[in-house]
């Protein structure tokens, strides 16, 4: 079936018929080909047929170019979805009070955002009370605190205390920064639940926390 759609799409390209090409894509989608497979199932084979027709001289250079223009026009209809789906999980990120290092936080926040997490970035120089305030406002249950200096890393304990004071003992605090990488025991000392050494580990850890929490809520 997909081969037939690919042949039809190729024909629409050659006929310079963008509306027809869109119709073919819509038919394929309606018949059950998911969006993420349209490119491989339809578009790429149709383009291969187009290349073959040009090589064989079945279509001339001008027709080839015009067909390629039609292919360009409908490209967005067959592309896999660019953005990941919203996970519905809110994550608060911020750099500790008196700490102005922002690179790691920016990279990790952007990575989480791109992966579909709702990131609430508090920026640099964030007081412990601001973390609590934002947890109250958003209902977030995951907080990533960044600290690149020993003093500010130790001060993360204040965030844990502040959250406990507000009755948010169940909030997961993850920490990131040089002092935590240099001294792994420090994270536990300040009451953190885990260390995020890199952007990829942040993705994995946050996804795991979100999954565990969802499973626990489902059980309850």
């Amino acid at each position, binding site marked *: 079936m997909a081969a037939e759609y690919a042949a039809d799409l190729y024909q629409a390209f050659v006929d310079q018929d963008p509306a027809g090409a869109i119709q073919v894509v819509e038919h394929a989608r309606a018949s059950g080909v998911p969006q993420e497979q349209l490119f491989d199932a339809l578009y790429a084979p149709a383009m*291969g047929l187009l*290349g073959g027709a040009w*090589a064989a001289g079945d279509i001339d250079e001008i027709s080839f170019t015009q067909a390629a223009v039609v292919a360009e026009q409908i490209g967005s209809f067959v592309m*896999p979805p660019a953005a990941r789906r919203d996970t519905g999980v809110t994550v608060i990120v911020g750099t500790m009070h008196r700490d102005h290092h922002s690179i790691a936080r920016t990279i990790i926040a952007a990575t989480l955002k*791109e992966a579909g997490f709702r990131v609430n970035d508090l920026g640099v120089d964030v007081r412990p009370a601001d973390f609590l305030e934002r947890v109250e406002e958003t209902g977030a249950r995951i907080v990533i605190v960044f600290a690149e200096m020993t003093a500010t890393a130790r001060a993360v304990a204040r965030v844990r205390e502040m959250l406990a004071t507000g009755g948010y003992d169940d909030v997961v605090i993850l920490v990131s920064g*040089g002092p935590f990488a240099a001294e792994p025991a420090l994270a536990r000392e300040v009451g953190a639940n885990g260390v995020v050494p890199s952007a990829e580990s942040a993705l994995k850890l946050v996804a795991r926390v979100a999954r565990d929490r969802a499973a626990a809520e489902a059980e309850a």
Partner: protein
Amino acid sequence: MMGGRPTALLTAEELARSGAVGAAVEACYEALALGDREPRIHALLAHLMLEGDFYDQAIAEATKAIEIDPDCSAAYLALGLAYDRRGGMSDQSVLVWHELAEVAPDLVTAHVQLGEAFAAAAFEDDAVASWKRALELDAKEARATYNLAIASLKREGMALALPLFRQAGELDPSQDELFFTLLGVHEAPAEPIDIERVKPTREARLGAAGLALRAEDLFTAADLVRLVLDEDPDDPEALALAAYAYLKQEAANESMACALRALSLDPELPTALYCLGVVYSRRTGLNRHAARVFIALAKRAGTHALVHVLLAESLLGLQKFEAAGKSYRLGVRLDPACVRARFGLAASHLTEGRFAEAQWEIRRAAYYDTKRQGLFWRLYDEYAGAGED
């Protein structure tokens, strides 16, 4: 200050140019014994010391050259590079690159280096301004664009930085080099290809088409490919050449069509894999496809550093930062002078919070980039020539 070059200096220059660093150093000291007020000797000695990673000596010699003649641009270059490579001297480095940009305002690399020195000293806005100035002087300056990509990563994350890495990569001549290495065409032809004089055989036509592509004579290449396809439309190698010719004309869909057809005939043809991978990597949303294609290319042509770099860039787009880092490291191991791999590895380090390692890779990229350009000798010869006029 400068007259004709003393014989001892000429000997030292000759030895240095031929790569005989030790003998050149000895010749420099012999020249200095005859008179130590010649800035060229000190500048040359600084360059040689830098070659041997003797940074403090390089700094001392370059400083002497500048003291004798503050217009000695080659000495500024050696001094700036010595400060950068020694590390921890970003304040001095900023001053030197600033001076070089004054002495040689059209020297694009001076602005690129100035930007890197600013970035190392955490003056990000000044750094970005310097790289933009470099791009005003030469819009195709790859290293300035790589640096802007790194700056974008620090400020906005990978999704916005990656297009800049790719843009820089396409300015980098190494990407075209990869295609021609895969094709087995190592040199551009000495003369334009005359289609009438090409033997009417498939091999001769394809060989000539490859040479024509290398010489950027796309029309001759296209005519030769057409002759091959007229005899056999199912010739995957001819289709791959067509895909590359279209790629060079920014005709991505035509390129994709030819590459896909070629791969339907020979699924492992490296030149077709290269073209398809590049087309996919230019499209938002096709990182997974690009990665798949570059993995296949790495299996067929894994000894080429750039194949791993291209794969790594697709992996960055998929947020597979650790795997990307691994591919970049492999790229650097295969070709330590690959600037694109060094900047990519720096980006990968940044995603892991390893800032010092990232900075180190950027400094190594600068070292290889200035070396590749032969910048010291260009400045040295200009300076020496001006003195002798």
